[in-house]
Each structure stands twice: as structure tokens, then as C-alpha cells.
């Protein structure tokens, strides 16, 4: 607590100093503030942002569905749609599938995409409902490695990050959502 107390003291002294400085500078003409580029939101409305995010997600899913695990380029297929922790996790997971020489079949289908929040300027949150029941992962003997416990559908909280004019998937967390599991495809 001694540390905290001294920190508060230091802060107090600093603010007093700033106040004095402010009083002194009150007499001098205020300098023009330097023009700084402000981050402007890429999308004018939430609707536009959600639409763009959905397009990204669809493009990503389509790219993922085209992955050939036996190809050296498998890790590159989705690279332009992902970033941050999602990109890292995906890389790791695909590498493991490749290391085990698994074959992926079928396609994941986007059942629903619901924009939740456009956190200006650079984040979009959305709820995604995805059907993975059509996909399978087979070992070298052609036996499925997918456990019976795999749900057919997943609801995901997806965080998109806007970098320049690109929207990238930065995080996805599976959540419980009965509306996803019961939704008609």
C-alpha cells in the first residue's frame, strides 16, 4: 500500500504542477493544435458494417471449404481473412490436421449472421450460426476422426477487426445459442 500511497502522492504533485502550468499559460495565446489524423469510421452505418462483415465471413468460409489439407498452401488459403489470435489458432489447428495427414471432406454452411455491434472505428461484433455437420475429417485409413459428440451447429461470437479497408476475423468464441441449433437452414 506504501507504493500505492506514494503513487497517489506523485499524481497529486503532478496534477498540481499541471494546474500551475495551465494557469501560467492562460496568459499566453493558445497555440493552434497540431492537425492529427483522426481515425474515421470506415462505414457510415452499422448496417453497412455488418453487411461487409458478413461478406467477409462468407468469403472466409468459402475459402476454408476449399482447403486441401495435403497441399502445402493449406495454411495460406484463409490468411487474407484472419488476423490476431484467430489467425494463430487456425494456423496451429490446420498444422495439426496436416501433421496427422487427415483429409477434409464436405462443407461448412453459414446458417445465420447477425450483426451485434459496430464499435467505431475498427471493430465489429457479430453472432454467427454455422453448420458443420456436412464436414468430416478422415485419417489415412479413411476412418472419421470426428467424435460423435461434435455438435452439428455452432453459435459463435465473432470479433472482426478493420484494418485499412479490410475486415478480418480476429476472434471467435463458441457460445450457447438455442436459436442457432433450432434454426432452419
Amino acid at each position, binding site marked *: *500500500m506504501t507504493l*500505492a*500511497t506514494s*503513487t*497517489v*502522492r506523485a499524481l497529486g504533485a503532478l496534477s498540481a504542477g499541471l494546474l500551475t502550468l495551465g494557469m501560467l499559460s492562460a496568459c499566453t495565446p493558445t497555440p493552434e493544435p497540431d492537425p492529427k489524423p483522426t481515425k474515421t469510421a470506415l462505414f457510415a452505418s452499422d448496417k453497412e458494417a455488418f453487411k461487409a462483415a458478413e461478406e467477409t465471413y462468407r468469403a*472466409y*468460409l468459402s475459402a*476454408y471449404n476449399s482447403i486441401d489439407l495435403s497441399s502445402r498452401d493449406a495454411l495460406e488459403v*484463409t490468411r487474407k481473412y484472419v488476423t490476431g*489470435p*484467430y489467425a494463430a*489458432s*487456425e494456423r496451429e*489447428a*490446420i498444422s*495439426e*490436421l496436416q501433421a*496427422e495427414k*487427415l483429409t*477434409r471432406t464436405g462443407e*461448412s454452411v453459414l446458417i445465420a449472421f447477425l450483426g451485434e455491434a459496430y464499435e467505431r472505428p475498427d471493430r465489429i*461484433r457479430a453472432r454467427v450460426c*454455422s453448420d*458443420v455437420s456436412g*464436414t468430416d*475429417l478422415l*485419417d489415412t*485409413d479413411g*476412418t472419421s*476422426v*470426428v*467424435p460423435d*459428440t*461434435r*455438435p452439428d451447429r*455452432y453459435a*459463435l*461470437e465473432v*470479433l472482426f477487426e478493420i484494418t485499412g479497408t479490410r475486415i478480418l476475423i480476429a*476472434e*471467435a*468464441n*463458441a*457460445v*450457447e445459442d438455442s436459436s442457432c441449433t433450432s434454426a432452419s437452414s
Partner: protein
Amino acid sequence: MHVRFVLTCVVVLVALSVGSPAHAAGGKGCTQAELEIGVCHITTNNGKSVDIESAKTVGEVIKDHRRETQRINDTNPGETIYTPVVDLRTRDEKFADCNTLWGLMNRCVPPIERPADQPAPKDPRATQPITITDLASFSPAPGTLAGEPDNLGVAGLPTNFTTNAAAHTRSGTLFGYPVTARFTPATFVFRYGDGQTRTTTTAGKTWEALRVPQFTPTDTSHTYAERGAYQASVDTVYTAEIDLGTGYFPISGTLTIPGPPQSIQIYEARTALVAHTCDEDPAAEGCPAS
């Protein structure tokens, strides 16, 4: 001081509550690959508390799958697994066992030591011996001949010859393997064009390089008996070494590469007694101004 303490605590509490983002819910995230293999943590909201269903990693699921497959194979009653019976005893062990049982009856014969089969070497040198003729396709450089002075000569006087052949390397492929061949001239066969040849181990040196006067006999020189135009040439006899990526090793034999013919003009020199030098009488016969 008391007020400050309370303030500090409030600040710390605020900081803590801000530090835990509600959306992440502590899950490690879930990628498409993980969804499809069924290993995603699912965050469930029961009122205020957040539970995360325990989930495995991709690797764990695959291991489980292997274990399960193994278990089914081991316990499947409908399927008989035939295991071939292989006697894993060594020859010595077999003999020892045999001797224990039958030694008294002198029926056991100790195994004869035989050399193990040589493993097939992977080196292409061994599988397919490379001969010098295989390297002919690498076309080592033919040596060109130069007569001194200036491809001219005087009958009865030595004409010096040199060749430019030198050690060099060529790259190519041999039996599908990339190969670098190094050719080194071993001997030179000077064909003077008048039916005479001379074999040397030197490429020859110019008179100037040898620091001797013109028309001095050298190891490569030849004296033509008569004037005329001769087509002289030099054959370069190369030895070769090849490198398959592990260093050079020699190939037995030599490759003889004939060089292009070089025309040599041999003149006849006549001597005459003159009264003056050309400096003194430039217009005299045989002088530059005549």
C-alpha cells in the same frame, strides 16, 4: 491519508473490473478447424455465471480416435487377427537351444558365419559405374593452337607452338544426377601438319615467356623442313574428375579432344651477302622500301 487510501482502492477495483472483458468469457477461441473436429469450448450463460464446457485440443481428439480404433481392433470378436509366427531367435540362440536339447547326440552344428548381404548402395557411382566416355557428352574444351611468330615460320628454323587448353569444369546431368566434371589436360599431342607429331605434358610457352630469343627450340617447337602451308592442330588429352555433390573423385581413363586446325605458313629464308644494311640503302632488294 485515510481518504487517499480509499481512493486508491477504488481506482484498483475499477481497473480490475475493466480488465476482464465480458465478451471473451475466458474461452480460448474457436476456429473453423476446431469447430469441424468438434473441440470447441462452448461458453454457456447460466444467469450471471459463465461456464466453459471442457473441450479437448485437435491433437487430443486424434489421439482418442487412435486409441479407440486400436481398442476396437483388439476386442472385436467377429474378426480373427492372424499373427504370423516368426521365430525371432538368432542363429546362435537357436544353436544354443538345440545344443541344450540334442547336444548329447551330436546333432547340432554351429551356425556358419556368413557375411551379411551388402546393402544396395545408393551412390550412383556404385550402381552404374561412370566411365570416361560418359563424360564425352560434357564436351571439354578443345585446345587451339598458336604458332609463333604469328602462325608463321621459317623452314629449317624452329617454329614455336602453344595451346590454350587448361583445366576447367563443366556441369550437366549424368543418369539423372547433377554432375560437375573437372577436366585437366594431362598430355598434348601436337600435330604439326607435316606428318610429324609430338606428345608433351606442357601446353607450351612463348619465347617471350621462356625469356629466350626467337627461333630457340622449345619443348613444343617444331622445325619444318620445307616451306608451305601446313594445317597444324593439337589434341588435348584430358583426365576427368566428377563431383556428385560429395567432392571430386577421379574417373579412370582419358578423353582426347582434337583441336581445330590452324594454318601455319612456313617460308624459306635465303641469305645473301649485301654491301649495305637496309638503313644505309633502303631501296636495295629485300629492304622495306624496295
